């Protein structure tokens, strides 16, 4: 498959999100597929932002292994990412402001400095001085040439983006784009083959936007949230479109309020949803149990981020499985489901509302930062406007002669037809205490162990019936595989490609992706795993929560676990290598690699010296009185490249031992 990966790096506030969005939309309109991964450190101005857009002629499921074109919007980006550009690639930056030392780039990489002042001189004469973010548009133009995307669709998207600001602004931006394009054409060669564009335009969207859109299609009427990254963009979409969609949005004073309001709306009879991150979900848990015992339909999206506590607010992780599974005291029916990609996210929300209504239970949809916030092109067909809405068994009228209405009637299915408040002759209390069929409490004044037993069984019967209609997980890939990769959530996207890479080199690999967590297809999973040769779990957490959960449900443990918990998703090649290492029984090491040492040095220098220094040459040293081998890292001045001291980082612990900056001019004074 033909593909190209473009990286854009700069400081938060440099406007690279917009540039990335423009680039992706253009590719989307050309009929190409895009997967964008934004590994930002901060949503606050100043932090380093690194956006990777992988563009393919066919569907791409992750941000990939390569970097072919680099747009550097600051010096830091050049130093950090220029060495990653593959041979045959290109590095683009504003030559008026930044430099790229040729030694940074691999052999065969084109360094294309753009003399922005010079090439935009004519435009400046007509439109006046450029603002800094306009360098981005020139750089985009250059990359369109390098990647052979042409100017036609680019001009369309730029026009759509700026037309509300008037024709003059459109002309300026199209002009900037052309400047970059023509300059690149005059100075360099394309880095890709020619594409055969299909021009099948695809929406370019995020998981959170899909959750919101799906909720609208599913007839959600009430949405509540408390701001929390990485769930907030659902709130933003809901608020921005509330008057059009008719979804009433209520920001709560805290997540306790959010969950309780959502349940309140569910009690009143509207389809209600809320969303939060792991920390907010922790506050919601008592109320989720209440929705369970009251048998109230509602949907909660739990977006996982790095934990525990405040953890890594802007990084991805899959470590909330046990929190969601263990939410609330006691036992109650509910559905926990983890969608694995964008199209599945849409379907999952639509289904979630139907299951919630039909089984009168809370549904938690487990997302993760990567699924919620990454951008991807998705086929339009994945987002049908008209979806099945099944509100379940609702009592619309109850003639008096029918006698007493029992809200919690003991039925075979466990589902008791629900009358909504306002209906005549069906009055009842929604009780958080356990209760009998008529919702009279059974713990204080009246006690009855058999009634408690029967109401518990009634509620839990719903789980058996629900499980029967959930699609069981299936193996993907060759049936006679040597290794089965077990995963869940958005990690599926990279596992899928790692499996393809493994199969291509003769390691027969298949995948078991778990979507429905509770109730769980224990029988089916047991059948699959008991036949699998080698089983390896792949999760973004430290303790292999899904693997532990599967073992608790099936008695089957994994042969090996692959875990990542540094806030970043895997890339396919990295993952494939880890799998190969596990299969070769290579002893696993947690040692600091050379690349890690460099990042640790960057972190130290940034937090202690601002942008003045950067790490230079790195060599490993033997045990030297520090109790462990160390990485010796030379420090260099950014501006001059002059050696400016050194630091040592422990090979095992990652400790920063010695930092000697004697050679630094300011330290001499």
């Amino acid at each position, binding site marked *: 498959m033909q593909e190209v990966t473009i990286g854009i790096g700069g400081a938060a506030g440099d406007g690279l999100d917009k540039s990335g969005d423009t680039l992706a*939309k253009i590719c*989307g309109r050309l009929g190409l597929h895009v997967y964008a991964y934004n590994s930002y450190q901060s949503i606050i101005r100043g932090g380093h932002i690194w956006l990777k857009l992988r563009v393919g002629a066919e569907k791409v499921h992750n941000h990939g292994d390569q970097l072919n074109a680099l747009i550097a919007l600051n010096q830091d980006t050049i130093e950090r990412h220029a060495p990653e550009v593959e041979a045959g690639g290109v590095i683009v930056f504003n030559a008026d402001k930044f430099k790229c030392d040729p030694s940074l780039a691999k052999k065969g990489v084109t360094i294309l400095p753009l003399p922005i002042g010079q090439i935009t001189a004519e435009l400046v004469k007509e439109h006046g001085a450029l603002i800094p973010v306009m360098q981005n548009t020139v750089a985009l133009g250059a990359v369109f040439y390098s990647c052979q995307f042409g100017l036609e669709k680019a001009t369309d998207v730029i026009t759509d983006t700026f037309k509300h600001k008037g024709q003059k602004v459109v002309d300026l931006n199209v002009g900037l784009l052309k400047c970059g394009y023509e300059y690149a054409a005059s100075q360099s060669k394309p880095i890709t083959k020619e594409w055969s564009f299909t021009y099948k*335009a695809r*929406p*370019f*969207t995020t998981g959170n*936007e899909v959750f919101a*859109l799906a909720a*609208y*299609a599913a*007839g959600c*009427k*009430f949405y509540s949230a408390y701001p929390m990254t990485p769930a907030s963009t659902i709130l933003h979409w809901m608020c921005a*479109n*509330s*008057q*059009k*969609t*008719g*979804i*009433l949005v*209520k920001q709560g*004073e805290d997540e*306790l*309020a959010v*969950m*309780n*309001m*959502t*349940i*309140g*709306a*569910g*009690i*009143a*009879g*509207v389809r*209600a949803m809320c969303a939060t991150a792991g920390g907010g979900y922790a506050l919601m848990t*008592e*109320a989720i149990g*209440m929705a369970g015992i*009251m048998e109230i339909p509602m949907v909660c999206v739990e977006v996982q981020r790095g934990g525990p506590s405040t953890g890594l607010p802007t990084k991805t992780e899959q470590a909330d499985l046990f929190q969601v599974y263990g939410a609330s005291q006691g036992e109650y029916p509910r559905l926990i489901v983890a969608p694995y990609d964008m199209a599945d996210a849409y379907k999952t929300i639509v289904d979630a509302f139907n299951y919630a209504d039909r089984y009168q239970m809370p549904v938690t949809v487990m997302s993760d930062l990567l699924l919620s916030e990454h951008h991807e092109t998705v086929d339009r067909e994945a987002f049908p*406007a*008209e*979806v099945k*809405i099944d509100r379940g068994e609702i009592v619309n009228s109850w003639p008096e002669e029918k006698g007493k209405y029992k809200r919690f009637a003991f039925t075979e299915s466990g589902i008791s037809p629900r009358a*909504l*408040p*306002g209906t005549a*002759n069906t*009055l*009842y*209390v*929604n*009780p*958080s205490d356990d209760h009998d069929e008529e919702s*009279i*409490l059974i713990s*204080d*004044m009246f006690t009855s162990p058999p009634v408690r037993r029967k109401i518990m069984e009634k509620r839990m019967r719903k789980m058996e019936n629900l499980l029967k209609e959930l699609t069981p997980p299936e193996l993907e890939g060759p049936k006679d595989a040597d290794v089965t990769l077990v995963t869940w959530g958005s990690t599926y996207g990279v596992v899928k490609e790692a499996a393809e890479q493994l199969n291509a080199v003769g390691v027969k690999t298949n995948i078991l992706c778990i979507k429905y967590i509770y109730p769980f297809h224990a029988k089916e999973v047991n059948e699959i795993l008991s036949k699998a040769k080698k089983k390896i779990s792949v999760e973004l957490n430290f303790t292999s929560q899904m693997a532990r959960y599967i073992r608790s449900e099936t008695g089957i443990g994994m042969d090996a676990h692959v875990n990542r918990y540094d806030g970043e998703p895997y890339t396919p090649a990295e993952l494939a290598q880890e799998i190969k290492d596990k299969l070769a029984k290579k002893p696993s090491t947690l040692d600091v690699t050379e690349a890690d040492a460099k990042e640790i040095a960057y972190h130290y220098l940034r937090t202690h010296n601002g942008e003045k220094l950067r790490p230079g040459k790195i060599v490993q040293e033997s045990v030297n009185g520090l109790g462990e081998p160390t990485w010796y890292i030379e420090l260099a001045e950014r501006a001059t490249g002059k050696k400016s001291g050194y630091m040592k980082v422990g090979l095992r612990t990652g400790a920063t031992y010695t930092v000697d900056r004697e050679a630094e001019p300011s330290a001499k004074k």
Partner: protein
Amino acid sequence: MATVIELPLDTYKGPVSPDWCPGCGDYGVLRSVQEAAGKLGILPKDLLIVSGIGCSSNLPGFIHAYGVHSLHGRSIPVATGAHLANTDMKTVITGGDGDGYGIGVGHLIHAMRRNLDVTYIVMDNQIYGLTTGQASPTTSKGQVTKSTPAPNGNLETPINPLALAITCGATFVARGFSGEAKLLTDLIAQGMAHKGFSLIDVFSPCVTYNKVNTYSFFKERVYKLEDEGFDPSDFHRSMTKAYEWTERIPLGVIYKTEQPTYEDGEAILKKGALVKQPTKVDKALFDKFVEHMV
């Protein structure tokens, strides 16, 4: 204004009789809620009583209406969601001082500043009764309870719910006493008829665990503001009254003002109760959302 057809008390007779201790102040509050609903002609099917957890929060089980017996401290957000989803129901929140002024006070503050159109009746007995007698947020300073033993007694200054309500934006603030049944019914009816957030703090003595704030304690001290021609429309005068806790303690409407409600501001509700609005997706709008992503 539509003619009100008053309904008899037994309209609201609940499925089970209350399990409160004999002599508990909450009996009087239950009766007054029923009388007030009857006076306003609210049909049981159109009445939603939401409570938290505590002795007084058992009230929804003792009245013929729709009810939610929710979590400790969470009656207000549950009621907020239920009310916003169905504004055709008259929503009344009931509970105790621990539920409302302790664990749930965060929600109370925000519900009041929203001026949500609901009525909140707090059966204030200045003690945790259901858990057998610990200090509550309204227990008097120095009072000895199970959780504030001698020699210290209660070291904390009690919350002043009336002053809190006035400063937070409640638009109807009143105090009742279950020993003054007629006044209490009148205050609850006024609160329910009021457009906006109404808080009615009710002295509802706990005969088992609070031997300080007893019926006789209040009977010796309370007086009715209406007897003195008090005008509750002035913020500063009302704040002064809210702090009156001496040999004389005022009962009646402490503060009343007309302000737009949260519901008035929410344009979506102009089309009627949310639960009655169509759920069908607007295909043209949906397509526009998708088109915007391309």
